[in-house]
């Protein structure tokens, strides 16, 4: 850590540092791209985890979180600019591909435009939206942005600000789709996009030429809502983000807040949290299997997957009282103790599932047609996976060992023994197999813990009003679809100054276009299914 600080300060004397769990570097905007180049090329920070847009009142800016995949060391860079009217920051899309979507998101929420970004359109909001909602001075009057029932104009060109070699800024337009192209909308209302994602797809017969992703069809403004809620209240949104990894999401928020407060969570709660996380992962992967098979046309598989998922939901329901939005974890522990039958049922389930997995493999994995549809389709190299930030099971299928549970262990993951499932093919089949194998690993984790849940409190008693100390906090957990990061900037109040959810699914759609090019429509469906994105998670 100190090492990185030295290297950066020797490279750039203007940089100032704030020590913390993650080193924070502040640079002036003019030097930012230079530093980014240095971080990427010389220090090998090849994974851009997140770009957090910020509005500090007087100034605006971004906080970048970077990771070096070689040793998983992290660094964050803060770039601050004073011009609120026409904020401009240099883009880093030339270094990290995941910035393509992240910077558009910042533009959408804060109006910060990125120099040299090829595509400065709004990401989540309509292109005729007035104002930038996450700015502190946003006019929230419904009169300004009423519900519009006319369709937004289709844009076939994008606008960009380009810096010419002599340092001048120029407005340019880039063509997305030519007038003669056969452009089909796949989604928002489409059975295979797993929700309301819109893919504008240019087709040549059956072949996909280009995909342009439109998000925001279920953008609910959670980050803005959190700013007016107290910390315990913000928790309940976590369940509704990626509802298929509800427990893990909530775990992330709790971890972040507990970290800031430096609360020690009782052992019993740690055990239960780990087990619940893994159960959630199993249920999510089962749902992945069901829907993926259905996308490929194997309808019966859908029913088998759901049949077994219901068994997990039964276990959840007994303890948490709900089938989907559990509201179970809380700051400092759990909402309630586990149900007396919990251990017995979980053990029964762990004994039941492996046999069923074999059945899945005979039904679907071994099928000739399924194999032909999956193998060699949607290739993603390790470098691309890192550059596009495609982590989680999809990244591990490309040979990138990116499991947060191993790299930055939380809860009990450093105490249990499990393998990180990594495959190297990087195709649809690998992504499919990684998930099915992860189910077995999760069962293995649960089996190690379930008999050893210690007695004791399930939660520490917290003060009725929770106030976080000032500072920036960032925690990640491994959700079912990849690392979910929670960023909180606290100004010492009872509600967060800014809460940013770094979703695991947004980078996944960023990688759709390169993966699907020159494939067939059917491949697009298979690739989309294998990435297993959840739209409300990426839209927030």
């Amino acid at each position, binding site marked *: 850590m100190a090492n990185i600080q030295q290297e950066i300060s020797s490279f750039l004397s203007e940089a100032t540092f704030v020590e913390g769990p993650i080193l924070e570097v502040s640079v002036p905007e003019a030097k930012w791209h230079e530093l980014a180049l240095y971080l990427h090329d010389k220090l090998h920070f090849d994974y851009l985890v997140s770009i957090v847009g910020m509005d500090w009142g007087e100034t605006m800016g971004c906080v970048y979180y970077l990771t070096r995949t070689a040793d998983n060391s992290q660094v964050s860079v803060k770039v601050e600019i004073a011009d609120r009217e026409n904020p401009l920051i240099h883009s880093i899309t030339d270094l990290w591909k995941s910035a393509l979507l992240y910077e558009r998101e910042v533009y959408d929420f804060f109006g910060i435009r990125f120099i040299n970004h090829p595509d400065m359109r709004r990401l989540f909001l309509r292109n005729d939206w007035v104002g930038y909602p996450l700015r502190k001075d946003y006019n929230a009057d419904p009169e300004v942005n009423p519900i519009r029932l006319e369709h937004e104009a289709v844009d076939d060109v994008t606008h960009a600000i380009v810096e010419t070699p002599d340092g001048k800024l120029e407005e340019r337009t880039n063509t997305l789709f030519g007038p003669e192209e056969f452009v089909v909308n796949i989604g928002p209302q489409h059975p295979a996009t797993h929700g309301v994602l819109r893919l504008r797809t240019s087709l040549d017969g*059956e072949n996909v030429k280009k995909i342009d992703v439109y998000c925001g069809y279920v953008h609910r403004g959670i980050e803005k809502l959190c700013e007016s809620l107290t910390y315990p209240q913000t928790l309940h949104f976590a369940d509704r983000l990626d509802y298929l990894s509800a427990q893990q999401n909530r775990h992330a928020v709790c971890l972040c807040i507990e970290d800031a407060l430096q609360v020690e969570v009782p052992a019993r709660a740690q055990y239960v949290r780990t087990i619940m996380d893994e159960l959630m992962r199993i249920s999510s992967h089962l749902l992945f299997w069901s829907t993926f098979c259905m996308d490929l*046309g194997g309808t*019966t598989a859908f029913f088998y997957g759901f049949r077994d998922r219901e068994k997990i939901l039964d276990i959840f329901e007994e303890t948490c009282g709900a089938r989907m939005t559990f509201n179970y974890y809380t700051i400092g522990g759990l909402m309630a103790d586990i149900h007396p039958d919990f251990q017995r049922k979980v053990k029964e389930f762990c004994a039941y599932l492996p046999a069923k997995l074999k059945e899945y493999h005979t039904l679907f994995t071994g099928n000739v*047609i399924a194999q032909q549809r999956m193998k060699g389709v949607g290739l993603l190299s390790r470098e691309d996976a890192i550059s596009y930030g495609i982590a989680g099971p999809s990244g591990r299928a490309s040979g990138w060992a990116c499991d947060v549970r191993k790299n930055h262990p939380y809860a009990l993951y450093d105490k249990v023994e499990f393998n990180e499932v990594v495959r190297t093919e990087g195709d649809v089949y690998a992504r499919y197999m990684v998930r099915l194998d992860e189910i077995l690993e999760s069962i293995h984790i649960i089996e190690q813990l379930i008999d050893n849940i210690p007695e004791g409190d399930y939660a520490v008693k917290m003060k009725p009003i929770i106030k976080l100390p000032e500072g920036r906090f960032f925690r990640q957990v491994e959700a079912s679809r990849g690392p979910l990061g929670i960023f909180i900037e606290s100004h010492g109040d009872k509600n967060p100054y800014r809460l940013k959810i770094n979703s695991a699914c947004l980078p996944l759609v960023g990688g759709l276009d390169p993966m699907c090019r020159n494939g067939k429509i*059917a491949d697009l469906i298979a690739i989309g299914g294998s990435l297993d994105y959840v739209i409300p998670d990426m839209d927030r």
Partner: protein
Amino acid sequence: MFDFSIVTHWIDNLLRSVMPGWGALLIEFVLVGVVLLLLYAVLALFYIYFERKVCAFFQCRLGPNRVGPYGIFQSVADMFKILIKELITLNHSDKFLFNLAPYLVIVASMLAFGCLPFGKGLQVIDFNIGIFFLIAVSSIGVLGILLAGWSSNNKYTLIGAIRSGAQMVSYELSIGFSVLTMVVFAGTMSITGIVEAQSNGWFIFTGHIPAIVAFLIYLVAGTAETNRGPFDLPEAESELTAGYHTEYSGIHFGFFYLAEYLNLFIVSGVASLLFLGGWMPLHIPGWESFNQIMDYIPSVIWFFGKAVVISFIIIWFKWTFPRLRIDQLLRLEWKYLLPLNLINLFIMVLVVIYGLHF
């Protein structure tokens, strides 16, 4: 074995005894039409119900069970509803072709339906080139699908239609060749002739290996012809929303829905008449008493029983296999089925010429 031509002749004589010949003929024609229509509708409804129940049991569900005992009126309710649903007219479609498409689809399946021998002496159209005619008319259906997809002026339907064009056209070949193989064996194209030729044993038994291969190819190609099962690319729901009939509503859509199930029946009916002896009971040479018992089962039951069993297999395909991709679909046909078919035809010719069959 009861010959249904006795009944038809009796009705014919009765009518002729009370009215002039042309009147009797007219009434007979109307009767034929009505019976055919009823049979068509009832079969389609039965098949819809049958498929739902079968797939429900594959999927550990119950399937429809609220409307009528065991839900048997479910498909009736569906048809009622579809009949009175709105027919949407599109703004920028080719209206003539849009409206023509369902006619083509239904008429094609109706004509093919009329060719099937439902029982002994129970057949509407019986040409000496019957099986040839059957293949010819059933392939009109693809025109309907093409027109439906093209005329809607919708990108999904267009892709669906063109997919189905490439698919149907390819698998038509396999159907043609496997039927040809059986025609070589039977030595006749007349449907009655083919069935009569199987009185001593069904072709699938007497024609041994080439007949079995032809049967398997026919099953695969027939599944593809009906746009079902792993070959449902033209209406691939997860890719093209509803495929070529995305824009069809109400009874317009109902026609495609009906025809899909009727085509399933026709394909299995043809399979049963070519390979499993049509309405011919199971006869095993030498087991006279067994054969006599088999003869007591009415021919109609034999035919429908065989057809339903084959349909069950085709439904089984659908609910087991994932969907093929278009290039795999065409590769399967042109690189595997077609050469296999040609070789199989050759073997069959040798078998026939040298009398190697039973």
